[in-house]
């Protein structure tokens, strides 16, 4: 796992979560800027996958390989599914779903770090 990317993902997703919950509180829809931020997080997560593959190819191993891999896969799908479910309805709660997805990714990144070393 690449530490710098993990920290970057954590920062972006926590900011995203705060932003989305603020929008939900003000009852505003999810706009392009929010989706762009989610896109940045997703790009970083993809980079993390590539980074992990490179590291493993170089001979490094996760402390718990199976758990690490599952967390990695989950971190990739959480935001797209969350965004899909959030955009399916125009309501406060639906908007908040994307915030939950962002929080889930932040937790998954923390778990990634734990299962890597």
């Amino acid at each position, binding site marked *: 796992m690449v530490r710098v990317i993990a920290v970057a993902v954590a920062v972006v997703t926590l900011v995203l979560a705060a932003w989305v919950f603020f929008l939900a509180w003000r009852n505003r829809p999810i706009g392009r800027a929010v989706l762009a931020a989610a896109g940045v997080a997703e790009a970083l997560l993809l980079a993390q996958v590539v980074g992990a593959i490179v590291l493993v190819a170089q001979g490094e191993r996760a402390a718990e390989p*199976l758990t690490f891999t599952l967390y990695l896969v989950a971190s990739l799908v959480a935001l797209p599914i969350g965004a899909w479910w959030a955009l399916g309805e125009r309501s406060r709660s639906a908007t908040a779903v994307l915030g939950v997805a962002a929080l889930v990714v932040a937790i998954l990144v923390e778990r990634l770090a734990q299962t890597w070393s």
Partner: protein
Amino acid sequence: MATETAPTTEATPATETAPATDQAATDRDQAPAATRARGLASGPGRLLVAVYAVFALAATARAAVQMITKFDEAPVAYLLSAFAGVVYIVATVGLTRSSAGGRRVAGVACAVELTGVLTVGTLSLVDRGLFPDEAVWSAYGQGYFFLPAALPILGLWWLRHTARS
């Protein structure tokens, strides 16, 4: 809600809110059948389904990994987590179906969860030796921000709430 958008300085809100009110009007015209059809997975229910789905996946996957890699360490805890995971899956599916059957399934799943989290939570505190490793429901779901205890209560409340309106 409409008054809340008024202070905005941009010119767009007026045009933006217009379709929303039209939508609300058509919704009211089609009531009560339409409101019931939108039902469980709509409004706050949408958030509830999302959190349930996260727990369904997390509990099931985690228990599966634990059973594959170290089943002998705490078989009871891992089996209970797997059971909890299956109940979360059933509840999630039930909540996404707004039919009478879906409601009943979701209601039973929530009741089983509440019973499970209270029983296992209490047992885990009374006799720590019973669960050498944490199950989802240990200490009323402390490892998961107590959400395992909150979810079935919210679920049952939501089922009642939507049944009334």
